[in-house]
Structure formats: structure tokens, C-alpha cells
């Protein structure tokens, strides 16, 4: 529990009763939760090591109510934490003791489906998978598929710019969202983008996606849907070591193949998954690749053959091609169950999310092994191999004093390592609170100030989701000060032509 949240504001806590009364005026009935038992289920998101019951929960049902809640909080200087389904793995929706938790779970309607223009308009509380379920009867799907897709909401996906196993080929949320309706902290509603492509002017939609609830509250989302590929096939390839598997991945891509999914697991992850779901993963290999291709049958057949050839050339020791849909699903079952599977072999695990340039994989894995020795904690690796997104799972026991802190320190070292080799702190889980204090590893002070000045353009009072993403929030007035003053600038000779 090494990450400190901002100290609760005594003045806000002192007027809690008045805040609750005002919220009840706006959202009548069951839509305001303020009793301790009622608040308990909201105290955490997917980063369960951190818990904090919110000051109060409000569940609006209309855009007008969202506007009124935000407008009132803005006027009264009360902080607001927006929340979708609460599946964030980075603490993005962690409540604050002195903030209203604005839960969007009642915005559950699919508003429109346009198959010809291939767009769906939904309210933000609709789950990711519900979009695909709504359109698959007509042969379409929504491409981003975070592993929490059965529960996570599209509004949360927009906030986090969620990915999934298929994003190398089909992109993250940002590449699949065409428009949003957004309520700003002052209660104003703006519509950004729509059903057309590439609106003119600054791409405000682009900066909203992935802004982790710091810029506004999304009340409607327009996404694009894609025709479902005719077929999908997968091949399961075992290698004696991760280096060979990594070389295989590089060659697949260098030869012009962008698989729909390309996942790697290391030995501990393979063993945990196989023990859990028993899908027939080879246990005598050092790394396992699942490579999936989708598209017309002729394409899949061709690519599977090519991939098998490339795997062979890179020293594959086992290779199995899915012969039917059941087998393809079985290949994935182990990978998709990797997190709970690791949960069976260790009392607790901590899931990391860095991205590295793939060419640095061998070095990163060997240094991770050294760190594992240093911290005396095991680690299992699952890896979106195509795009270099690592998910090391650090094994620990929260009941052993000090182990959680050690796991967090281990995790921080892994992320520092990712940045050191040219990668990033987070590939798809977001910064949230988890990686907040590591931001200076990747960004300098000017870089963070520039990002924060965008925050100030949307929310100058810094009331929306404070304590997330930025290690330090400067007052917006401070940021606005110009750094150059009249008469103090050098006038060097500059090349002219």
C-alpha cells in the first residue's frame, strides 16, 4: 500500500450531509447511496489491493442528471470520481474519501445500430461484449476485446483506451470510436465526432479516449463495428526458450503477416494454465505461442502454412494447428484463464502491463529473472507478443507481512526496465493510481506539464478524478504563467533563405 492518495479535504467532509441532500434532489429514489454498508461494494475497482469507501455514490439515469450533479459539484468545489463497471486494473476508478463517486451503470441502452454505415450508438454503461452480442446475428462484431469484456463498460473502455488480444490487427478503443457525448465538469455538454470520419479542428475526441476520467464524463459513445471474419484458425507452437519464440514472432511480422492474435506464455504460465483448464498445452517447453489468423478460409490456410514454416525455421519443438472451432477455442481457453490459473498457484498475484520493443525481449526476461531472485517472489509471464505488451504476474501472499510492498517494488522495477529499454509504463491498463508515481520515469517535467495543461483546459478546478495519472497536480494558474518575458530573450543570428 505504498501509493498515497490526496489528503481528504476537511471542509468537504464537513458538508457531507448537505452534499447528500443536494444529490438526492437531483437523483431521487435509490440513486444515492450514503450508508456504510451500501458504500462497501464500491470501495475498490480491479486493483483490489487499494480500498477506500467513497463519500457518497450517485447513480444518475439521465444526461440531465449527470449535468446537474457535475454543475453542483463544480459550484461547491466537490471532487468527483467517474466509474463504469469498476474493472480497472490500475485503480482508475478508486474512490476518494472526500469525493462523489459518479457511477454510470444505469446508462445501459443501445441507442441505434446502423449496419450499412457499420456504426452502433450506445450509452456508456453498456458492456463491451453486449455490443458484439447485439450485432453478431447480422455477422458483425465490436473489435476491441479486453479480457474483462463480459463486465467492463464501453464508457470505461473509452476512459482507459482498452485493448485486448486482437488489437495489433484491429486497434485499441481509440481506433474504433467515432464519437462521444461528454459532460464537462462545469455541466456543459459537448458532442465530439459523430458518425462521420475525421472531423476538422483539433482532435478533441482523440484526447478524450484514454484520459482516464480526468477530462469529462462520457454519456454516449458511437463505435464502428466490423464484419465478422469468415473463419479463424490458430496454431499452438512450443519452443525450448522464449528467445526462439521471440525470433519467430519477429519473423512472422517481418514476412508481412499481421496475425489477429499472437500470444506468448512462459513456462510458469503454461504450467499454471494447463493445471487449471487441461487443454493439452505441452509442459516440456520454455515458451508457448498461440498464433491466430482470421479472414477468408483461403487466407487462413495459406497463413497457417506460412507460420508453421517460420516456426520450424526458428526451432519450434511442438506445433499443433486447430482442426476445428472447438480446438481453436481450447487453445485460447488456457491463455484466457491464465490470470485465474496463476491465482490458484499463488495466494495473490499482481498483474503488470508494460510494453517493450520486441527486440529487447530476451534481455528483459533475463533481467526480470534477476529481479525475481532479488525480491524472492515468483513471476509468470503472459505476453501480447505481436505488439510487445508484457503482462508479468508477480506471485505473492498478502497475508505475509511485507510481501505486498515487495511485490509492488518488484513491479515498479519491471516497469522502470520497460522504459529503460525504450518501452512504456502501460500498454493497455492505464496509469490510474498504480503507475502514477512512475510517470517521471517516462516523462520529463515539461512533458507532464504539457499534459496537465490539457487537463486544465477541460477541468481548471482539478475536480475530476484527482489523484490519478499525474504524480503532482500543479494549480492551473501556475501552469499558465509564461516562461519567457519581454526583453529577456536572446536574439541570435538564425539561418535565413
Amino acid at each position, binding site marked *: 500500500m505504498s501509493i498515497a492518495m490526496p489528503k481528504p479535504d476537511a471542509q468537504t467532509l464537513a458538508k457531507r450531509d448537505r452534499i447528500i441532500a443536494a444529490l438526492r434532489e437531483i437523483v431521487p429514489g435509490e440513486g444515492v447511496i450514503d450508508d456504510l454498508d451500501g458504500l462497501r461494494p464500491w470501495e475498490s475497482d480491479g486493483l483490489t489491493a487499494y480500498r477506500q469507501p467513497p463519500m457518497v455514490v450517485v447513480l444518475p439515469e439521465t444526461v440531465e442528471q449527470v449535468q446537474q450533479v457535475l454543475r453542483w459539484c463544480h459550484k461547491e468545489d466537490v471532487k468527483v470520481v467517474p466509474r463504469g463497471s469498476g474493472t480497472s486494473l490500475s485503480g482508475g476508478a478508486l474512490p476518494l474519501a472526500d469525493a462523489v463517486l459518479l457511477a454510470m451503470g444505469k446508462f445501459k441502452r443501445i441507442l441505434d445500430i*446502423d449496419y450499412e454505415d*457499420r456504426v452502433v450508438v450506445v450509452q456508456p454503461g453498456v458492456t463491451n461484449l453486449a455490443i458484439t452480442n447485439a450485432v453478431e446475428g447480422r*455477422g*458483425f462484431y465490436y473489435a476491441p476485446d479486453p479480457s474483462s469484456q463480459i463486465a467492463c463498460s464501453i464508457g470505461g473502455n473509452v476512459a482507459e*483506451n482498452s485493448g485486448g488480444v486482437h488489437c*495489433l490487427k484491429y*486497434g485499441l478503443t*481509440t*481506433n474504433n470510436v467515432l464519437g462521444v457525448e461528454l459532460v464537462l465538469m462545469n455541466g456543459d*455538454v*459537448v458532442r465530439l465526432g459523430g458518425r*462521420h*470520419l*475525421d*472531423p*476538422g*479542428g*483539433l*482532435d*478533441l475526441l*482523440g*484526447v478524450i*479516449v484514454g*484520459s482516464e476520467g480526468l477530462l469529462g464524463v462520457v454519456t454516449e459513445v458511437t463505435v464502428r463495428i466490423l*464484419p465478422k471474419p469468415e473463419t479463424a484458425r490458430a496454431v499452438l507452437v512450443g519452443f525450448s526458450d522464449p528467445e526462439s519464440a521471440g525470433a519467430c514472432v519477429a519473423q512472422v*511480422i517481418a514476412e*508481412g503477416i499481421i496475425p489477429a492474435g499472437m500470444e506468448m506464455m512462459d513456462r510458469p504460465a503454461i504450467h499454471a494454465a494447463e493445471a487449471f483448464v487441461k487443454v493439452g498445452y505441452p509442459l516440456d517447453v520454455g515458451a508457448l505461442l498461440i498464433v491466430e489468423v482470421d*479472414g*477468408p478460409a483461403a*487466407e487462413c*490456410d495459406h*497463413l497457417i502454412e506460412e507460420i508453421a514454416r517460420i516456426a520450424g525455421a526458428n526451432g519450434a519443438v511442438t506445433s499443433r494447428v486447430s482442426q476445428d472451432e472447438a480446438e481453436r477455442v481450447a487453445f485460447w481457453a488456457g491463455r484466457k484463464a491464465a490470470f485465474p490459473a496463476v491465482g490458484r498457484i499463488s495466494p495473490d498475484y499482481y498483474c503488470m502491463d508494460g510494453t517493450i*520493443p*520486441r*527486440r529487447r525481449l530476451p534481455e528483459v526476461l533475463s533481467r526480470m529473472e534477476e529481479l525475481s531472485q532479488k525480491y524472492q517472489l515468483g513471476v509468470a509471464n503472459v505476453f501480447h507478443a505481436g505488439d510487445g505488451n508484457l503482462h508479468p504476474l508477480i506471485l505473492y501472499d498478502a497475508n505475509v507481512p511485507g510481501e505486498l510492498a515487495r511485490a509492488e517494488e518488484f513491479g515498479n522495477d519491471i516497469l522502470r526496465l520497460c522504459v529503460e529499454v*525504450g518501452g*512504456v509504463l*502501460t500498454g*493497455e491498463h*492505464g*496509469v490510474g493510481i498504480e503507475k502514477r508515481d512512475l510517470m517521471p520515469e*517516462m*516523462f520529463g517535467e*515539461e512533458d507532464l506539464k*504539457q*499534459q496537465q495543461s*490539457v487537463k*486544465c*483546459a*477541460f477541468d481548471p478546478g482539478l475536480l475530476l478524478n484527482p489523484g490519478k495519472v499525474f504524480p503532482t497536480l500543479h494549480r492551473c494558474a501556475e501552469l499558465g504563467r*509564461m*516562461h519567457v518575458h*519581454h526583453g*529577456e*530573450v*536572446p536574439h541570435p543570428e*538564425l*539561418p*535565413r*533563405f
Partner: protein
Amino acid sequence: MLAPRDTKDLVEIVARATAERTKLELAGGGTKAGFGAPRDCEVVSMQNIAGVVDYDPAELVLTVRPGTSLADVQDLVAAENQMLAFEPWGELGATIGGTIAAGVAGSRRVTAGSARDHLLGFTAVSGRGETFVAGAKVVKNVTGFDLPKLMTGSWGRIGAMTELTVKVLPKPRQTVTMVARNTPLNAAYAIMASALGSNAEVSAAAYLRTGEVLLRVAGFAPSVEARCAALPRLLAEHCPLDRMADDEAEPLWRNAMSGHALQGAVLWDVHVPPRHATDLVATLEPLGIDWAIDWGGARVWIATDRTDSEVREQALNFNGEARLIRAGDEMRARVPAFHPRRPGVAMLEQRVRRAFDPADVFVTGRFKEDADADQLFA
């Protein structure tokens, strides 16, 4: 014209302009100088900040300086059988920095995304005269705000990129154009929508005034052959389809993606929900226009000699927007290049712009909304 050699020069130029209250126009190859209102200001050429920084084909990323010519970048990646998937196009002299800053995307945009979807990271000098980095040099990253989205299509309004990293993708081994000829206006949308909505993975769809609906099928040879065989069956209820020779198809695609061959002194780039594209054309045709449709209907190029805003008004009626690409000085001084944003969005946009350029160093008069920003806040 100022021609900085590096970031240090650029920082000094911005600092001096701030102190002297002069305005700076950032320029790449200058091929799009005719976009926006005529203006008189100091031009900062980015052409000397050029060259490839890092390119590792297997990592799918390319880091390059902005003054590098677009043609050189395309040649470089083509030599590794790769491409910029958003299919940027430009006149001779266009730079990669200018192409990104203008958000240029070609026919493949409808399936592969736009320039915004392929800029991964950059280093830039802001209007504050500060150097900052944003995004990263890996294909998958959600660390911090996605400032590369703001930079793409920003037309030099928020900062000068000094280095940029784009995603590159494998180039299709084979590309075939299938064509439906003599297609009437009221039948074209259904063909494009059916093709793009089918599992034949059509990567681009365009419709030209001469009646051709073009459907592009690209990928590995066995797949392309199978899909080209399947498409006529999938579209049987709409039209017959033929294979078009590459040398016939290439200029047609070029016109669909750029509108360059259209006749008329004034050129508009209209973005609408695809289902409205042909209705928009039908509405405007009595006014005497030339036109081409790309992005499966999402983009309509309209050329006309009229110097009023009728095209823009009709674009709005069809839930879209119109960008003024080419016009005489008088019209460009009068009619804003970008479709005016709704008031709430306009104010937000100005606040975001000033988050990068609080002293309006990059406000040259090219975009009237920026020059008028204070009126919004009054």
C-alpha cells in the same frame, strides 16, 4: 523565411516571436499553403529538420524528422515491403511532418484508420517555446494523455514537431480493383456498404462521377483470388463486377482520394455519414458541381465555381461538415477553411489550443477561429 536546423534554433525562434509579438507559420514543403485564409507572417520552414532517426521493420515503427519528404519515407518503407497504412498522398515536395499535421489520409482510411491512428509519438516545441515529448516509440501505449491525436491534423496550431514516430504495416503482396461500371447515383451507396460490410475484406471503396464503383481487395495472393471470386456472388443482387486493370484503376483511385482532377475553382472536402453521400451529391448537382466519393461514402469531394457556402450548408443538413480546400483569396479570406464548430466545442478547442500556445504565437490569421478566440471568452 526562417529555417531552423534543430530544436535549439526552433526554441529560439519561438521565444523571440513571443517577445516581439510576431506570428509564426509552420511549414513543411509548403504544398498546402493555400489552405486557410491568406495571411502575412513569418514562415518557419521545417525542411532542414529532416532525416530518418530509427527504422526497425520488425518492430513496425519508424522514427523520422518532420522535414523528411513524404516520398522518401514511402520509398524507405516500401523497400522493406511495408507502408504507411493510412495511405497519405501529397504533391511533390510534401513532407511527412506536414502530412501528419494536415491529417492526410487516402482511400484505405475507411478500413485502416487515418493519420491520427498511426502517429505513435513525437517531440515538439510548443508555443510556450518548450520542448516536450508525447506518446512513445512502441505500437501499444496508453501512458498519459494521447497528445499525438491532438498533434495530428493540428495544422501548426499547437506546436512544431521535431521528431515523430509512426506505425508502419506490411504492404499487401497483391492488390486488385474490382469495378461496377455505369452505376447510377442511387445505387452506388448500397454497393459500397454491402462490400465493406461483407467478409470479403474490401479495404477501400470509391465512386466516381463517370459511374465506376471501385472496390479494392488486397492481401496475400491466395486470399485476394478467393475474395475476388466471392465478391461478385456477394453483390449479385446489386451489380455485375469486373476486374479492372491496374493502369486504369490507379488514376481513378488517385482522383477519389484527392479530388485533384475535379473541375472547378473551388474544392470542398465533405465528410458525412456514408449513407448520405449520394443524397448530398444529388442535392448539389443542380448547382453545377463536379464530384468524387471515397471512404465508402464518408468523404465527398465537391468542386464548383460558386463562391458561396451552399456546399457547407448542405453538408450540415446531412449531418456532416465541409472543409474548404481550394479557393481564390477573396473567398478564403471570407469563408473559414474548417467547418465552424458548435459553440461549446469551439470554446473547448480554443482552451486546448491555448494549453499549448497561450500567447497565440502560432495564430497567423490562417484560421479565423483562433484569431477570434478572445471573443468566445468575452
